[in-house]
């Protein structure tokens, strides 16, 4: 039990603003799939041809930001706009959902059912489950200052993914992670 000092526990109650938004509909599910790597940023834009920006989740994730991604927040705004078109019909969304259901040990239906929502709402780590596509590797040689550390890491994470779990593998790093600028 969290330690409280006031009889009504008001000092440990978490204000609503500090509650994570639950995943209850397809739009938030789509954000989840994008954030954790089950959907690639590019594929999602292609199906929304009039948006050129990547959604915030992808751009602000500490592990898969590429220098080509400009402003993270605008992406999330774009994400909401795209929600107006029903992702349920989006084949990419459905296949990503099936992928998530498969790795989570759920029945693979491609439908955002309650069990899938519950799995998405579990407490979890913020690192993506899947490495994103390999052109992130090309950015590995960005300058190595702490601010750019995420760039270096995501590539390597991709490399690490590859060596250990073939179901998530993508093609390997294109070599030379050395000190080139």
């Amino acid at each position, binding site marked *: 039990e969290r330690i409280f000092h006031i009889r009504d526990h008001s000092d440990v109650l978490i204000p609503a603003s500090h509650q*994570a938004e639950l995943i209850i509909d397809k739009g938030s599910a789509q954000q989840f799939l994008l954030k954790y790597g089950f959907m690639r940023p590019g594929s999602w834009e292609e199906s929304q041809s009039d948006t050129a920006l990547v959604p915030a989740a992808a751009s602000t994730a500490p592990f898969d930001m590429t220098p080509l991604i400009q402003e993270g927040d605008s992406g999330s705004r774009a994400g909401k706009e795209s929600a107006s078109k029903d992702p349920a019909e989006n084949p990419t969304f459905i296949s990503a959902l099936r992928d998530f259901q498969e790795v989570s040990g759920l029945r693979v239906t491609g439908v955002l059912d309650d069990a899938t929502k519950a799995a998405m709402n579990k407490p979890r*780590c913020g690192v993506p489950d899947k490495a994103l596509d390999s052109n992130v590797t090309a950015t590995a040689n960005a300058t190595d200052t702490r601010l750019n550390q995420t760039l270096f890491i995501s590539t390597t994470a991709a490399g690490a993914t590859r060596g*250990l779990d073939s179901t998530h593998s993508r093609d390997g790093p294109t070599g030379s992670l050395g000190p080139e600028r």
Partner: protein
Amino acid sequence: RKRFLETLLLRKRRRRDLTGAGQVGFSKKVLKWRLMGEGYSSQLSIDEQRYVFKLAFRMWSEVCPVEFEEDLTSPLFEIDVRLGFGTGRHLGCAQSFDGAGREFAHAWFLGDIHFDDDEHFTAPSGGNGISLLKVAVHEIGHVLGLPHIYRGGSIMQPSYVPQDSAFEIDWMDRKAIQQLYGGCKGRFNTVFDWVRKERTPYGELVIRFNTYFIRDSWYWLYENRSNRTRYGDPIALQVGWHGIPSDGVDAYVHVWDWRTDAAYFFKGTQYWRYDSENDQVYTQDSEGQRYPRLISEGFPGIPSPINTAFYNRRDSRIYFFKDLHVYSFDVRTNKKVNGFPMRITDVFPAVVPGDHPIGNLDVAYFSYTHNSIFFLKGSHFWKVVSSQDRRQNPSLPYNGVLPRKDIDSHWFDICNVHMSTLKM
């Protein structure tokens, strides 16, 4: 001064290089970590938080050749892993936390770890909530280079799995991290099977043995059945073996026949007799001998210090090894056997020419699990041909030494931890 920045970058870059196993990861063997002052959690005491992280880092050290040291004083750029708690937008991080529920932490490969302080983290002994220890071990796995692994029992599963009992890093996760950093290697001072008599709850007398590896001032119990060391090992030598030199021993010999049951530790020019019943060295044994005693007194004709020794039950002799020679001592006559010392290569000939430890052995160990004698030296071992081997292949020479193998391919996960975490 003009190239200062360049040296700065260079130093940092060298830290992130290829690991011993040729993978991209930390190339350093000892990493520094620090819980940032501006990132303390509001839920646990600072000591609790630091203790949990110390234990989490130690758990990884127990299974891979990387040690972690908490460093509260060095300049920040020398810290390899910085940890901190925050809510929403936090610690200058590009990814905000989402509040209580869902995302509870994230980490950077070869870098930092952030925890969402809106989550209800609990210390290992805490009740409900999210185990901070479990989350920390998971995130440190990311820092070291492991991705999410969808496998029941893996600590690297992305979603939190409540734990009803203490959790450990399982076999597959150990192999995953060793794929990145290689196995744990190193010399041992001695390896032995400690045999003791115990009574079952029904009063039956049973004889049990456990295998122990000693390196300098710490030791591991090796669980042969599980192919790993005991969870939580290594332990400081004086914690488990009372009265023997705390900085390590040269050899352990258990003389066990129908007349004698005596365990001895050897170090330098002296030896101690160990009272297995009371788990401490004798100051005076039942025959009135006081310990420690000089080896030359208890085993006339045997030089000291020795490299190692073992008792051979087949001929009731102790074989002492020193440099290139082996001495045989008959415990029934309490005399050195005529004809010894002899060259080790003569008494234990190589089965494959040229593949022999020659001398200066670290360990000569008779294993009850394998019913065989092993010679350990550096990071390799040589198995001595056993009677079973000769039944299968009569052409093998008596006491022949089979080709060497890596110790860590036979006895797994015997890994050092940083001295600062030894007494946890």
